[in-house]
């Protein structure tokens, strides 16, 4: 039997491990416009991301293959983030010394635009605070999943994958 990858022992991908499965976009591309990143390292029978992409930027050789995003073709529309059944698609965009990360948010409450939220990394650890800059509510999402974009310090762009909304 082949050796079990670390992500299946732990249930999360470290950034180093993610890079083994997904070639990440370079900084130029990250500064141009938002770009979709699939955090989907395991072959499962699932194709909605490739089916919904309006520019055919998500390549998939067969329904069990890993999605590969052609970053130059990606227009940053977030449809893959909205539809992905595994909630495994994100978008990253660098602006100055900030990063904007777009992620699914199926937890109550959905934050409002302008609201400050607690940033969580891939193991749920609080790593800082960010500001919500856009919200696509469930009714407007193509995949019935609310999508939020959160602005944060640039260095957190590859760590933060969830947020916690704290209200009095």
């Amino acid at each position, binding site marked *: 039997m082949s050796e079990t990858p670390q992500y*299946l022992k732990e*249930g999360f991908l470290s950034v180093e491990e993610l890079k083994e499965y997904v070639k990440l976009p370079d900084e130029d591309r990250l500064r141009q416009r938002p770009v979709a990143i699939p955090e*989907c390292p395991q072959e499962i029978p699932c194709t909605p991301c490739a*089916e919904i992409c309006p520019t055919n930027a998500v390549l998939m050789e067969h329904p069990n293959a890993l999605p590969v995003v052609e970053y130059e073709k990606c227009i940053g529309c977030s449809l893959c983030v909205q539809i992905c059944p595994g909630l495994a698609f994100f978008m990253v965009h660098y602006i100055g010394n900030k990063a904007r990360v777009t992620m699914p948010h199926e*937890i109550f409450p959905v934050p409002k635009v302008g609201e400050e939220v607690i940033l969580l990394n*891939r193991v*749920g650890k609080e790593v800082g605070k960010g500001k919500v800059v856009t919200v696509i509510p469930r009714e407007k999402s193509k995949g019935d*999943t609310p999508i939020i974009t959160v602005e944060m310090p640039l260095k957190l762009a590859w760590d933060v994958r969830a947020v916690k909304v704290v209200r009095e």
Partner: protein
Amino acid sequence: MRLSEHPILNFERVRGREVTIYFEGKPIKAHEGETIAMALYAAGVKTFQHSIEKHRPRGLFCAIGKCSSCLMKVNGIPNIRTCITLVEEGMQIERQKEKPTLPKTTKPPKWKEPQRIEADVIVIGGGPAGMMAAINASDAGAKVVLLDENPMLGGQLVKQTHKFFGKREQFAGVRGIKIAEMLQEELKKRNVEIFLETSAIMLLQNGEDKLVVGVKKNKELVEFKGKTVVVATGAMERMIPFENNDMPGVYGAGAIQTLMNTYGVKPGDRVLIVGAGNVGLILAYQLYQAGVKVEAIVEAMPKIGGYFVHAAKVRRLGIPILTRHTILRAEGNEKVERAVVAQLDEKWNVIPGTEKVFEVDVIALAVGLRPSIELLHQVGCQIKYVPELGGHVVIRDSRMETTVKGIFVAGDSAGIEEATTAMLEGKIAGIGAALIAGVASPEWLKEIEDAQKELEVFRSGPFGRKVLEGLKKVVVK
């Protein structure tokens, strides 16, 4: 306690008129459309009966009518499955302590001829496989009747708040609850007669005909006569041995989903989940969505068995997954108050000194399912033990017909897999049944072939390998 706010579900929409039921004489507020067990649980009743010999308290286990954990006395009649029996105004509910007997004043019901229903295809089970079988058999020209012992159609789809995988034409990206609604709409458009709260208790052959004996609402006999039958009776949750595994608070994962996702009842405050397959991982996420704290997921295997993406969803919300860990025992006074887990070595032995105690009031078992094959067994289908498919399953051909001509099988009752494949198998079985009943034209063979190809593609990845190994042992022709 009842849930009100939820990111996905709207319970106010489904809760019916308020009614009063009586638990051991004490009035309890319930809602029309919910089952007795759910109403009791919402009111804080977690012990449903005591075992006959040792008088140990028993709570829910499966919550879908497949086990005996929630049997109670309802209006004087013992052994009622309270998890699938709807509340009615003024109902009197009591716990059973001794071996239950019928009240002395009860007279046997006056014999009356049962309702008799005839159809080309009888479908038993209204989950994803059964609904797809009924829809497709009907489209192929058959007169179809569908029965299910639950008060609603949808099977386990009605509690699946996550979005499905697969291709978009197979409902990928759509939540299970929504798929259940969509399939129900499709059934409504067709002339399929539906019997809910109707248990199939016997499946018999009568010459060329098939007979299904049904019991409606625990008392009324219904006789179904058909040319063919599709058995889509689903599966039953597995239990694993550990100290106090019968204590109220130890529930099957599906029972917890029924409580919180179907009926909006909070299952507890703090949960330990046993098993990191898809069911355990999805359950953890759903509990978090319902505002329940998940302390950890323990998994005896050295790796996560479910989809990684489901694991990643719960990890980033701060829920730990402990691989190579197992549960040793539940502790508490009459109900779960703690769970004790420990680490396992490479030989599956507990490593001394690694015990951890979790203060939890619920222990969720997500340790696999076994196919419900009782009716298939009874009618004489050839059976084989196939661990890759979850246990004993029936031999069948590529159109899902068993070794008894005219009896078909689909979904988890054919082998544990998932709802997407269950729907495809249901389609194949439904059309196959219509063909054998002699009502479908041969063009429908093309539809069967298409569904077979879709199944092949779906199963072609690493997650399909085990199922394919299992299928090699049971699919003939």
